[in-house]
């Protein structure tokens, strides 16, 4: 009972506060009574101001449930009625706080796309309306944000920025049958768990890079024994662990060595001898370029010529400069270069014109998310989530990353990692 009332309180709080249009940079306003855990018991009086009228509720705990439920229903009905005439799309993410620089480019990107769509008459004649909510990348705020957007009647949401916040918000959207497309949440479980059929993303998941490396090593290089090394860091070790799992799952190759090396050490010859002894036909390295260039250099000194496959922490010009001749033939994964794509160019140019600076993180991904969503709505001929979801999975849309669609789990097909190889001192895309 107590938990129910609190959930309802949270639900109820939303219609009370202002509608979010145009209040992009404000943290969600939560009435003080909503934040305190035991507020329900102490609650005697709630004053809200809505459309100029002052409404005073005097409540006792035992009546609370009924009163709130009735109220919530009434509010939702009112919102749904006012939604006619536009298609509401939510934009949720970090618009304030430490991580605002990850969320604001997304907001700008979506605004640009929606402006372009509306200038052309909207989706099938219906203009789009953006509802903007800030979650500051905090899961506990994200649930409020989601509830607020859902009760405002959004049909789809672009966001959230961070994986943690996205995960917290997703059940709310799922229950309300709202589509969510995130341009930046990369945690693999969001799609792979199968818990959130309403979730899509326009960025490669964390494990995609490892998958690309493994597919390349096992499928193209056709090696059977792989040594996986990492630098013990979050990035390198995480990648290496995914790679190990994928190699084992592939059934075509085995991991003959899995070790962490100490970054900054003066000599890696012992671990290189170990790689040699393991009989590995390729080394898969998760980490950054200073260690990679030392390992490759010392491998070549020891006359080991086996393939070295690394990641986008190594696909860096410093690696080419430092490793020099030894870098030749090294493979590294990295995001495909999209700067030549006309859509990418056009949106980056529009951003520069309005903002005067270069677009920040995840801008291209957010443009892709907005284009995919609006494109799917056009294809589906409606904004009904089920029809839109079907369109997302079946028809391709032109985005900054080229033409993309989504698989049944919600991962983008067409946004991923490419394999590069060092040839004559340059990274050349080989796959």
């Amino acid at each position: 009972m107590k938990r129910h009332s609190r959930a309802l309180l949270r639900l109820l709080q939303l219609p009370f506060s202002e509608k979010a249009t145009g209040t992009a940079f404000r943290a969600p306003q939560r009435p003080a009574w909503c934040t305190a855990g035991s507020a329900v018991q102490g609650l005697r009086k709630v004053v809200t101001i809505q459309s100029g009228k002052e409404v005073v509720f005097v409540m006792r705990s035992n009546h609370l449930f009924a009163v709130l439920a009735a109220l919530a229903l009434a509010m939702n009905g009112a919102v749904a009625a006012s939604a006619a005439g536009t298609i509401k799309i939510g934009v949720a993410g970090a618009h304030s706080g430490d991580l605002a620089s990850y969320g604001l480019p997304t907001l700008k990107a979506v605004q640009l796309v929606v402006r372009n769509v509306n200038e052309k008459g909207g989706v099938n004649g219906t203009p789009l309306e953006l509802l903007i909510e800030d979650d500051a990348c905090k899961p506990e705020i994200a649930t409020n944000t989601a509830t607020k957007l859902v009760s405002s009647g959004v049909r789809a949401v672009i966001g959230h920025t961070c994986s943690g916040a996205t995960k917290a918000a997703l059940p709310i959207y799922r229950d309300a049958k709202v589509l969510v497309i995130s341009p930046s949440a990369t945690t693999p479980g969001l799609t792979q768990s199968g818990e959130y059929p309403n979730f899509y993303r326009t960025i490669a998941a964390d494990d995609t890079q490892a998958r690309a490396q493994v597919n390349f090593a096992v499928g193209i290089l056709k090696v059977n024994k792989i040594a996986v090394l990492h630098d013990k860091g979050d990035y390198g070790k995480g990648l290496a662990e995914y790679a190990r799992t994928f190699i084992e799952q592939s059934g075509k190759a085995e991991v003959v060595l899995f070790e962490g090396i100490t970054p900054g050490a003066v000599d890696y010859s012992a671990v290189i001898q170990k790689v040699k002894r393991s009989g590995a036909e390729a080394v898969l390295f998760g980490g950054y370029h200073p260690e990679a260039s030392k390992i490759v250099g010392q491998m070549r000194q020891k006359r080991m010529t086996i393939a070295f496959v690394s990641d986008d922490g190594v696909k860096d010009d410093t690696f080419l400069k430092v490793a020099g001749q030894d870098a030749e033939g090294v493979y590294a994964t990295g995001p495909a270069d999209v700067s030549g794509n006309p859509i990418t160019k056009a949106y980056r140019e529009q951003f520069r014109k309005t903002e005067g600076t270069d677009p920040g993180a995840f801008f291209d991904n957010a443009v892709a998310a907005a284009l995919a969503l609006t494109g799917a709505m056009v294809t589906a001929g409606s904004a009904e989530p089920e029809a839109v979801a079907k369109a997302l999975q079946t028809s391709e849309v032109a985005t900054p990353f080229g033409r993309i669609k989504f698989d049944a789990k919600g991962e983008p097909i067409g946004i991923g990692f490419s394999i590069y190889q060092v040839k004559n001192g340059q990274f050349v895309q080989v796959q």
Partner: protein
Amino acid sequence: MEYFIELLFSGLTRGSIYALIALGYTMVYGIIGLINFAHGEMYMIGAFTALIVSTVLSIHGLPLPAILILTGLAAAVWAGAYGYTVERLAYRPLRNAPRLSPLISAIGMSIFLQNYVLLAQTSDFQPFPALIPDVAFLEPYAAIIGSTDLMILIVSALTMGLLTLGIKFTRIGKAMRATAQDQKMALLVGINVDRIISFTFVIGAALAAIGGLLIASHIGQINFFIGFIAGIKAFTAAVLGGIGSIPGAVLGSFILGLTESFATGYVSSDYEDVFAFSLLVLILIFRPAGLLGKATLEKV
């Protein structure tokens, strides 16, 4: 067996790298009882000097052995000048201060020099050319030991020998020992203690610079931070062998290098440092002054 030999040489290479730096630590400590935390920076400055000089010389098209010798000389002289200056600025004014003050001053100097190089050069890693060419007679053993590794081994053994002999048999060596035993008495018998101490710092810095040149050409890259990381390990090695003792520094370095190499080879490189530092703890429990260090009674 072959694997064992490979690991052995990999450990010896590591050990001799540590030894090149540890020798300077232990020499300064032996004379004035100061842990010169700026010593790693001398190594780093030596490596940068070597990079600049060797680049200039190779533009002029000198043959590789000439480049190597001239670069070594230039790096040693330049780093020696830094060693002298650092001693004059940061340690001499604190000669009679409590022991903690020069220690703090040394850490300050280390931070200053790192940031100086960061600003004067760059924060990026710079490629360092392989100054020691591959030699034909080592080619069958390339998988075990390279020319640079061999050179490092030889140089660190050679410097250890020369230092030990020099301190034992030369006039200045005698003066250094006298200074180490009792500075006041050394003054009374007419030894210019300040000059001896300066000399020690210059030699220490020059050794570190030679180390910088060799190690940088082994690992092929340098940046402003390499001195700190290498310095910590070399310092550990010096303590292990008994700080203040020159053979001790070399012994400690080899033990550290071999431990790390065998731990990596037979257990896992994830635990390389765990083994190295567990060994340090063990040795210090049973021999607090290190393996070859003399336990001295100190009135604190």
